């Protein structure tokens, strides 16, 4: 129970960072923290107490295995998270080249 709650606290720190910070890089950091918290939450839900990794091998004494389905989906989500982070970072660098700042309140000119 408390593990779930600590994971949600990590989520809330990322949410605070997105809501409250004005620097683009800080917002990217907040999005990354939220991604980590959600991935960790899925794996926590699929954990079986006293289980072993879902890899079959002869001569194992422990019968129980943890849930392989959330692990497979999170494996997909981690790679997509890297792609999204790279894309946002590229857009932030481009914004910095054009406006000379990362501050989102100063980026107001709408020129093509």
């Amino acid at each position, binding site marked *: 129970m408390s*593990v*779930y709650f600590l994971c949600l*606290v990590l989520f809330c720190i990322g949410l605070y*960072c997105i809501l409250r910070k004005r620097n683009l890089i800080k917002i990217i*950091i907040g999005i990354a923290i939220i991604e980590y918290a959600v991935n960790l939450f899925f794996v926590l839900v699929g954990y*079986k107490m006293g289980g072993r990794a879902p890899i079959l091998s002869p001569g194992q004494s422990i019968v129980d295995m*943890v849930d392989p389905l959330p692990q497979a989906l999170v494996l*997909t989500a981690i790679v997509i998270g890297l792609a999204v982070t790279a894309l946002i*970072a590229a857009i932030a660098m481009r914004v910095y080249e054009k406006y000379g700042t*990362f501050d989102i309140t100063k980026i107001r000119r709408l020129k093509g």
Partner: protein
Amino acid sequence: MLELQILLIFMIIGALIAVKAKDLLSSVIALGTVGLGLSLAFLILKAPDLAIAQLVVEILCVIILIRATIKKDLPFSTSGRWFFNTIVTFVFLIVFLSFAYFCIKDLPQFGKPIMKVSQFFLNQGLRQTGATNLVSSVVLDYRAYDTLGEATILFTAVVAVLAVMRRAGRKK
């Protein structure tokens, strides 16, 4: 699961430093510690594939963010309605956390998952797909279309990054 809780508290402290640090480079490095702690947590939760993938992805993510932030540091502005915004944000977070606290009680107990679909994968995975690693049997066989979509997203993101960062053809 005491070690898992200690690791989670370590990750929360790292995230707080990443949010609160004045210097952009140090906050990116603090984000790196959070990701490496997550990799260790996956290892404790018996997910070795995820731990390896998270390790590689975290290093790449830190490299990309350092490339984006280096030599571009700037002071933080605290003008505007600072006090009001902070109060509103904290009220929202407290309401969110209290709702989440009551919702967590309806989830299955930690360590006792409902494994209706997964029990089928665990029993039949080796016979139907021939893979001893059941995670890879799910990724590459049962849900192969998901993996195809992931590859599509990855290539789209790479093309988009190249299009955004391209120097030729840009107006002066």
